């Protein structure tokens, strides 16, 4: 039996980095990610008396973080956030050729162009490796919604990235279908 304050610190220290990364991959802004997660913990502490209503703390934290990230995206629709890589390195990485860099930037931009909720769900699936059922449970939405959103993400992203795909695909899709091929 220990001080609640100590327990809270333990949870904070173990979950803070994880949650910051989830938020970061959705909104691509490190300072904002940390602020978001700080707020969530602050709220958690303020509502500690009502914590008996929470059955799954991980789901609670993921849900809060994801929703806050979605809200952030909605509020900052017109803000273009420089990709983290650009901020930290400033100089293009030596071992990456120009095409690679351009590709990376395009990928980042393509993801940034997804609708907020779609982007968040996609990030949880692709980057966090969460199963659809897990995502649905944590965010309290239906599995159908998750399936739908990831599908939308895939089509939109395919559109944006088409020029960058392996040549044979772009050629094949541009030319009319020829019988016998």
């Amino acid at each position, binding site marked *: 039996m220990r001080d609640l304050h100590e327990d809270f610190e333990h949870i904070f220290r173990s979950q803070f980095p994880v949650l910051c990364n989830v938020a970061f991959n959705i909104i691509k802004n490190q300072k904002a990610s940390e602020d978001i997660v700080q707020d969530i*913990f602050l709220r958690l502490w303020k509502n500690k008396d009502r914590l008996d209503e929470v059955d799954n703390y991980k789901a609670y934290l993921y849900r809060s973080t994801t929703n806050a990230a979605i809200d952030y995206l909605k509020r900052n629709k017109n803000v273009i956030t420089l990709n983290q890589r650009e901020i930290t390195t400033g100089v293009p990485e030596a071992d990456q050729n120009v095409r690679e860099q351009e590709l990376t930037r395009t990928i980042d931009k393509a993801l940034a162009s997804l609708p907020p909720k779609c982007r968040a769900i996609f990030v949880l699936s692709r*980057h966090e490796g969460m199963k659809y059922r897990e995502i649905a449970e944590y965010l309290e939405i239906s599995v159908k919604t998750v399936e739908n959103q990831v599908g939308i993400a895939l089509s939109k992203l395919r559109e944006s990235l088409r020029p960058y795909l392996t040549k044979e695909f772009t050629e094949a*899709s541009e030319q009319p279908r020829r019988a016998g091929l």
Partner: protein
Amino acid sequence: MNAEIIAGYLSGNITEEERALVDAWREKDDNETLFNECREVWELLAKDRESILPDTDLAWKKISESIKTPQLKKKETRSFYRLAAAACIMVPVLIYFLLFHKPAGEVVKPAQIAEHTTPAFTEIYTTDSLAQFYLPDSSRVLLNKGSRLTYPEKFGPDSRYACLTGEAFFEIKPDAARPFFVEAGESMIKVLGTSFNVNHRSGADVELTVVTGTVEFSTSTIPGKPKLVIVEGRKANLKNREVSTGKHDKSQKEWWQERKKNRFKRFLGKIKKIFRKTS
């Protein structure tokens, strides 16, 4: 065939049947090309994933400033259940005012304080909430609802003492020179340093559960009855002036084991699970 199903396939989120359907679809016409396009996009997107290393120490500093309240000092042992304790009338009472067989929840009138020779006592009682507080030797007590604990303001050089009505969990600081005695109803529990739970609710029945360490359990008013030694993992019951011992029942033991595991669960559990069976 649509992007949804292909995405499900690529992310490993579809059933065996659906998988077979997709594989069959791929064999037809030019579908494999389309499929590979999707797969390449899927692979490319992994490049977007980044890791950041936030300054957790700094973040903790910031947040702990915001959550600190005046009465919460780190070293000192105040809990935020102090509200419950503070709400109680903390008036030194003479020990004979404690009527062990009173039903829980009855209001105790503050005693007239004799100024001269009587030792000063502290009494903590709870009604609707839990109280956590520390005894003069820094032993920790978690007092359940509708309970009362009385103890001297200062412990003597030979022993430490507290008197309980209701239910409390004790975490006693080891002190070989000063054994700790808890009197609950007609039982007397002697400890050196350990953690245990005492449940003295209805009438004269007392239940002692030992979590860590060893305690001695005896009945104070029945002469000749031997002192029992209760060890970790066992409990003792005083019922109808008969003492019986046994193992922890499963649910309690599970809870004690849980506390060693997931700290967060304890954090939540403190509100919900603690003493639920008796509230």
